[in-house]
C-alpha cells in the first residue's frame, strides 16, 4: 500500500479583500487521522482559510487537494459532498426544530411532499450519538438544549453527512471546562476512526492539550507548522505575535483597603424565568481585584446589569448593592457612572462602542455629560482631539486610517484598549467592573490591558473582574469567588490565590470543582 494521501493539502492559497490580503500564500497539509490546530490572533486569517476549505469563499490563487484529488468548491454543498464539514462558532441550528430534524435538514431522503421516516431517522441518530459518546435526545427541540449539547448536534450533523474532515471554529468558546474535556475526548475518538479534525482556536492551552500538529498564522501568512510535541506556549505565542511575549503577568502583592462595593443577599428573578441570583453576597475593597469564576449563564450578566442599573425593571429584586455606603439599586447608568463606577461590558461592539462613530465620538460615549467636555455649544472639540491623541499614544491604540476613523475599522484589541482608556480615565472613579476584558483580544494587547488593570489597582480602585479564562483570573485577582447557580459557592482568600498563582498547575482544577 502506498503512503495515504493527506486529508487536505493547501498550496499557495491567496485571498484578498480589496487591498487587504486576508490569506497570503498559505500552504499546509492536514494528515489523515490527526487533529490539526490552526492558531493565530484575531484577524490573522484563520476564518478566511477555513471558509475557503469549506467552499464559502473562493481563493484568488492556489489550489486545494482533498484525498489527493484537486478540488475547486463553488459552494459548501460541494465541500460537503467531498466529505468536509464545518461547525461554525455561531451554531447554524433551527431552534424550534428537533435534533433529528436539524440533523437531517438539507439532506432529506424523502420526496418533497412525502412524510419523513422519523422513527428510523431518530433511531439512526441515537445510535450515531452513542457510538461517539455524544448522547442527545433525538426528539428534543434545539432551544431546550444546553450550548454544549447544541454543539454535539452540530458535530452529529457532520457525522450523519459522512464528513471525513471536520473543521471546528473556536469550539470551546462557549463550553465549561468539563464540557471542553468531553469534546476533546470525542474528537480523539473521531480521529482514531480515521477522520481528521481541523481545530481553529486562539487558546494555546487547548492546542497543546489536544492537537497532533499545529499551524500558526500571522497577518494572513503562515508563520509555521510544527508537531505539537515540540511546541510550548511561549514558542506558539512568539509565532503568533512575531516577538517574545510576556505570558506571565507580574502581579506584585498589595494590601487592600476599606470595602468599596458591598453586595448583600442579592436575589434576582426576571418575569417567567427561574431565579438567576440566590442571595449573592460579596464585597470588593479598594486596591483589590475580586475575580469571579464561573461558567456563563450562572448569573454573571444579571449581576452586571444590577450593578450598572440596566436590569429589567419588571424583574423581582431583593438585597442590596452599596458603593461607599450609597445604595446603587434603582439608579440609572448615568447616575451610577457619576457616583464613580466604570463598566466594561462583555460584548463591546454591542454595548461599549458605536462602530460607525469615530474614535473621538466613542471616547465621549457615556462621558458626554462631563462638564469638562462641554464647549460653548455642543462639545469642546479641541479638548476631545487632544485627549484622543494622548490616549491613542498612551494606550498604544493603532489604527490604519488617519484622523478620526470609525471604530469599526479598528481591530478588536484596539477597540478594547479604547474602551479601557475611556472607562479608566473617568474622573472620580471608585469601582471598575470588567467583564471579559480580554475576550477576542490579541495576545499583544492582552499584555497591555493586564498591565493597565494592575496599575488601576495600584491607584486604589476596587475592581470586579469577570472572566471565563481561569488563567487570567488567577494571574490578576486578589481574591476569587466561584459563582455557580446564582450564588458564590466558594471564595478563595488572598493567601490561597497567592499560593495558587505560584503553583505550576492544579489551582485552576480546584476552581473548576466549585463552578460545576
Amino acid at each position, binding site marked *: 500500500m502506498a503512503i495515504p494521501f493527506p486529508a487536505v493539502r493547501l498550496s499557495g492559497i491567496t485571498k484578498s479583500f480589496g487591498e487587504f490580503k486576508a490569506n497570503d500564500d498559505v500552504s499546509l497539509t492536514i494528515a489523515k487521522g490527526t487533529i490539526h490546530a490552526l492558531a493565530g490572533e484575531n484577524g490573522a486569517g484563520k476564518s478566511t482559510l477555513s471558509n475557503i476549505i469549506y467552499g464559502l469563499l473562493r481563493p484568488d490563487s492556489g489550489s486545494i487537494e482533498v484525498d489527493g484529488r484537486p478540488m475547486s468548491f463553488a459552494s459548501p454543498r460541494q465541500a460537503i459532498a467531498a466529505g468536509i464539514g464545518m461547525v461554525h462558532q455561531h451554531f447554524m441550528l433551527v431552534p424550534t426544530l428537533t435534533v433529528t430534524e436539524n440533523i437531517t435538514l438539507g439532506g432529506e431522503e424523502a420526496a418533497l411532499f412525502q412524510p419523513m421516516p422519523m422513527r428510523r431517522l431518530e433511531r439512526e441518530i441515537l445510535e450515531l450519538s452513542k457510538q461517539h459518546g455524544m448522547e442527545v435526545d433525538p426528539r428534543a427541540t434545539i432551544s431546550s438544549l444546553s450550548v454544549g449539547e447544541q454543539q454535539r448536534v452540530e458535530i452529529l450533523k457532520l457525522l450523519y453527512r459522512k464528513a471525513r474532515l471536520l473543521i471546528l471554529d473556536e469550539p470551546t468558546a462557549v463550553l465549561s471546562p468539563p464540557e471542553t474535556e468531553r469534546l476533546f475526548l470525542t474528537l480523539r475518538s473521531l480521529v482514531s476512526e480515521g477522520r481528521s479534525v481541523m481545530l481553529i482556536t486562539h487558546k494555546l492551552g487547548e492546542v497543546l492539550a489536544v492537537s497532533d500538529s499545529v499551524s500558526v498564522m500571522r497577518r494572513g501568512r503562515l508563520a509555521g507548522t510544527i508537531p505539537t510535541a515540540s511546541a510550548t506556549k511561549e514558542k506558539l505565542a512568539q509565532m503568533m505575535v512575531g516577538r517574545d511575549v510576556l505570558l506571565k503577568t507580574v502581579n506584585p502583592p498589595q494590601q487592600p483597603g476599606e470595602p468599596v462595593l458591598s453586595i448583600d443577599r442579592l436575589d434576582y428573578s426576571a418575569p417567567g424565568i427561574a431565579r438567576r441570583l440566590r442571595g449573592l453576597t460579596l464585597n470588593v475593597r479598594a486596591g483589590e481585584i475580586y475575580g469571579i469564576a464561573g461558567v456563563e449563564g450562572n448569573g454573571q450578566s444579571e449581576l452586571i446589569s444590577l450593578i450598572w442599573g440596566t436590569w429589567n425593571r419588571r424583574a423581582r429584586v431583593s438585597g442590596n448593592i452599596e458603593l461607599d455606603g450609597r445604595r446603587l439599586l434603582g439608579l440609572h447608568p448615568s447616575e451610577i457612572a457619576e457616583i464613580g463606577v466604570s463598566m466594561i461590558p462583555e460584548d463591546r461592539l454591542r454595548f461599549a462602542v458605536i462602530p460607525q462613530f469615530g474614535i473621538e*465620538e466613542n471616547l465621549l460615549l457615556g462621558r458626554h455629560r462631563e462638564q469638562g467636555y462641554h464647549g460653548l455649544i455642543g462639545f469642546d472639540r479641541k479638548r476631545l482631539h487632544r485627549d484622543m491623541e494622548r490616549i491613542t499614544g498612551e494606550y498604544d491604540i493603532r489604527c490604519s486610517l488617519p484622523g478620526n476613523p470609525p471604530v469599526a475599522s479598528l481591530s478588536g484589541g484596539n477597540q478594547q484598549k479604547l474602551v479601557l482608556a475611556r472607562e479608566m480615565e473617568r474622573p472620580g472613579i471608585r469601582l471598575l467592573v470588567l467583564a471579559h476584558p480580554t475576550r477576542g483580544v490579541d495576545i499583544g494587547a492582552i499584555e497591555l490591558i493586564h498591565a493597565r488593570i494592575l496599575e488601576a489597582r495600584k491607584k486604589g480602585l476596587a475592581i470586579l473582574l469577570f472572566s471565563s479564562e481561569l488563567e487570567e483570573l488567577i494571574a490578576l485577582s486578589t481574591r476569587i469567588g466561584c459563582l455557580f447557580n446564582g450564588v458564590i459557592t466558594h471564595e478563595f482568600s488572598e493567601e490561597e490565590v497567592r499560593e495558587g498563582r505560584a503553583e505550576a498547575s492544579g489551582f485552576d482544577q480546584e476552581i473548576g470543582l466549585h463552578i460545576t
Partner: protein
Amino acid sequence: MSRKNLQPFIPLFSLLVALVAGGMIIAATGKSPAEVCVRMIRSTFGSGYGMGQVLFRTTTLVLAGLGVAIPFKVRLFNVGAEGQLLMGSFAAALCGMLLPQAVNPAIGVPATLFAAMAAGSIWASAAAWLKIRYGVNEVISTIMLNFVAQGITGFLLTSRFAVPSTVHTPAIVPGSMLPGLDALFGLSWHSPANLATLIALGASAAATLLLSRTRYGYTMKAAGLSPEAARHAGIDTDGRILGAMAMGGALAGLGAGNLVLGYKHWFEAGLTSGIGFMGIAVALLAGAHPAWILLSALLFGWLDFGGLAVNTMVPKEVFMIVQAVTILAIISFPAMFRTRFLK
C-alpha cells in the same frame, strides 16, 4: 476606486438612471424627451413666476423632508408626515381664523405657526408613545394616524368649519399671514412663494446644527446607531425617540406656514395633496441629511411644478410614473450597492 470613495456618487448615479428611465417613459408615449425637458426648464427657471412656483413647492417639501429625516436619525421611519402636515394646516387655519381681526403680526404669525407645529408634534408623538410604551411599529401607527388625520380634518371641515357651499374654511386674519416674496424683496413674480421659504432654510440650518454640533444631537445619533450601547452609556433612548418624533412632527406641521399662512390663507380639502409622502422621498434621496434635503427638495419641487407645466404635452399620469420611478431608483440603488460590496 474603493467603495468609500464611490459612496457620495450613488444618489447622483441613481438620479441619472431615474432621469434616463423617465425619458424613456416619455419617449414611449410618443413625445420627444428632449423637447419636454427643454419646455420644463423654460417654464420653471425661465420666468420669475416659474421660479417662485418651484420655490413654493420646494419649501413644503423641505419641511416635510426634515420631518422624516430627524426621526430617521433614531431609526424611526416616519411615514406620517402627511398626517402631521394635515393636522398642522388645520390647526393653523383654525388659530388664524379665531385670532382677533386686528392682531399684530408679531403675535399673530408666531401664534399660528406654533399652533401648526404643536398639532403636528402631538400627532407624531402619539406614534412615538405607542412605540415606547407598547412596541408598536411606527410605520404602521403613522400610516394609520394619516387616515385618522384625514378623517378628522375632513369631517370637521365639512360639518363645522367650511364656508357654506365651499370646501374651505374662512380666511385667517391678516395679522397671521406671511408676506409673499414679491412684497418682501420688491419682485414681481406673482407667485405663491412667501416668507416660509426663508423659515424652511432656517429650519434646515437649525437641524444641521442640532445633529452635527449639539449634545442632544450626539445622543440622538448614538441612540439611533446602537440603542443598546446608548442605553449602556446612560442615554435615555426612549426620550430620544419621543424627542425626535416630536421634532419631526413639528417640522412637518410647520409646512402649514407655507401652505396656509403664506399662500391659501385657509384650510381646504386636498390642500396637502400627498406632499407629506413626497417628503419621504426627499429625505431618502438626501440620505436624511438636513442640509442635502434643500437640494433634494428642490429637485422634487422642480419635477412637481415642471410636470404641471408640460401637462399639455405629457399627461399628468405619465409624470406621476416618472416621479415614482425616480423615487424607486433612488431607494433601490444604494441598497443594491450595499449588498454587492458588503461581503
